[in-house]
């Protein structure tokens, strides 16, 4: 006010100025409340997971196979290995396809074919995961006559591809045009520019996209229900029915025994922790590049 006193125009608009300041303060509070509201569920989930899951954590859980129903103890070693195998296989199949697709869309997709592929990818991203499972069931399981880890992995890969493809395209398009020009100006042909300059520059973002896809498929139970089915026993045979953590969580959480419930919580905590650790590790490894990119 001391500043405004000696300036006629500031003094005249003092009322408006105060209203704006008040509005500014109110909006800031609203945004902070919204931000807190958004992260509260996350913390609640983590808190619940820790409270319910920690008591069930034991060495046996990781190393033992499930006991027959009703007999307490045992572990979920088969589900851990099954999830690891199926998620790895779907990454191995899905990530190259998705990255190729994303590069195609960003570099050669400014035409009708590109628009068509982009449309298909968007539709794929919107398909419910249970439908994907049903599709693979009809396509593979019924024809082969048996459930298998391969079928489960394919269902997971179908969910993974649109996620990673879209992020790859976006990250490639985010690479500044000036870098492409610099590369062309050095006499690099287009594909070398794409592979040596654009793709490496976009890589940290693409890795983040893969991590996003990984978290998504590692937690999917629906597409595995009638593709990989599930298995009471330990197996590494990818042509046989295989167990997975989300499916076992589903079975245990809805089952009748208390120790099942406890193990379901422990498995949930395990799943979240593993995904978190993988994401953080990968980001730490590629993090140096991200900071370099500014």
């Amino acid at each position, binding site marked *: 006010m001391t500043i405004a006193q000696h300036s006629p125009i500031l003094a005249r608009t003092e009322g408006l100025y105060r209203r704006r300041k008040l509005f500014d303060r109110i909006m800031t509070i609203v945004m902070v409340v919204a931000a807190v509201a958004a992260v509260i569920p996350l913390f609640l989930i983590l808190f619940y997971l820790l409270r319910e899951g920690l008591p069930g954590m034991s060495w046996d859980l990781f190393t033992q196979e499930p006991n027959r129903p009703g007999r307490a103890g045992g572990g979920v070693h088969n589900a851990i290995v099954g999830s690891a195998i199926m998620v790895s296989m779907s990454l191995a199949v899905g990530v190259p396809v998705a990255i190729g697709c994303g590069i195609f869309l960003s570099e050669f997709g400014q035409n009708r074919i590109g628009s068509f592929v982009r449309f298909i990818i968007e539709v794929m991203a919107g398909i419910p995961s249970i439908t994907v499972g049903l599709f693979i069931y009809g396509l593979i399981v019924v024809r082969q006559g048996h459930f298998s880890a391969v079928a489960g992995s394919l269902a997971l890969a179908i969910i993974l591809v649109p996620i990673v493809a879209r992020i790859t395209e976006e990250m490639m398009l985010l690479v500044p045009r*000036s870098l492409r020009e*610099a590369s062309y100006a050095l*006499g690099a042909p287009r594909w070398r520019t794409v592979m040596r300059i654009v793709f490496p*520059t976009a890589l940290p973002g693409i890795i983040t996209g893969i991590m996003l896809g990984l978290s998504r498929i590692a937690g999917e139970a629906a597409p595995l229900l009638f593709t990989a089915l599930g298995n009471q026993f330990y197996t590494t045979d990818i042509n046989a029915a295989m167990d997975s953590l989300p499916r076992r969580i589903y079975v245990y959480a809805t089952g009748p025994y208390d120790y099942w419930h406890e193990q379901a919580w422990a498995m949930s905590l395990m799943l979240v922790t593993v995904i978190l650790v993988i994401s953080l590790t990968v980001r730490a490894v590629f993090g140096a590049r991200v900071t370099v*990119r*500014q």
Partner: protein
Amino acid sequence: MVDVQTTPRQELANPMADGLTQTSSPEAAVLAPVQDVQIAISARNVSAFYGPKQAVTNISMEIRKKSVTALIGPSGCGKSTYIRTFNRMHEFAPNARVEGTILLEGDDIYAAGVDPARVRQRIGMVFQKPNPFPTMSIAENVAAGLRFMGVRSRSELNDRVEHSLKLAALWDEVKDDLKKPGIALSGGQQQRLCIARTIAVEPEVILMDEPCSALDPIATLKIEDLMRSLAEHFTIVIVTHNMQQAARVSDSTAFMLSDEHVTGQLVEYGPTEQLFTTPRDKRTEDYISGRFG
């Protein structure tokens, strides 16, 4: 032999005409490849378009070897578009089109079957904003063009990196940090890194598109000194909207202008000293005396 065509609207443009013969038939000269020891780039009747929009109109110019040629003119006069026709970067713009002939050492760079990538290995380019590759170290940045060309030998790459960085007057500042990311350098250093990257592939011509406009005055002076020393080895064409810079660094200067009738025309081209002291065209005089633009 060099073809020199003079039309009323557009004056030809050969400041170093001493010792060069002139022919009256441009077609004949186009058919027979012209080679002249003094001329690096010979541009004839070059027009450039973005879709239906014309950006450069019928410019003919000869660029002398191992000299600095400056293109000046107000914003939007087509000077950046024009030099981008020299290394075929113009064609990256959507619906871009070039008319006319551009000869590099007598080779038509727009001839059928010419790979633009090969042209760009002979005519390098430095951009307005320093653009080192962010995923690469200083050394890798300099070696990038060589790697694109297929040079594999470690020792050859190392030698060329050192040589190029020395030519770019950056070696003493970075010789202990060759493995550090190129993007960690200051703006002026980044620009010199980009120059080192360009000269590493040993182009005949280096195009510089306002290379100092993102730099502070001290970094600008360093780049200008560098241009002078590089002109001993390379032909340099620089676009600048800074007339003082053109006056300081260039041997010859071309003044371009767009008016309501013609976009991107060449008004006057001559030895720098002459153009700045005794311009022949009234519009040049108005521009360099600061009356417009």
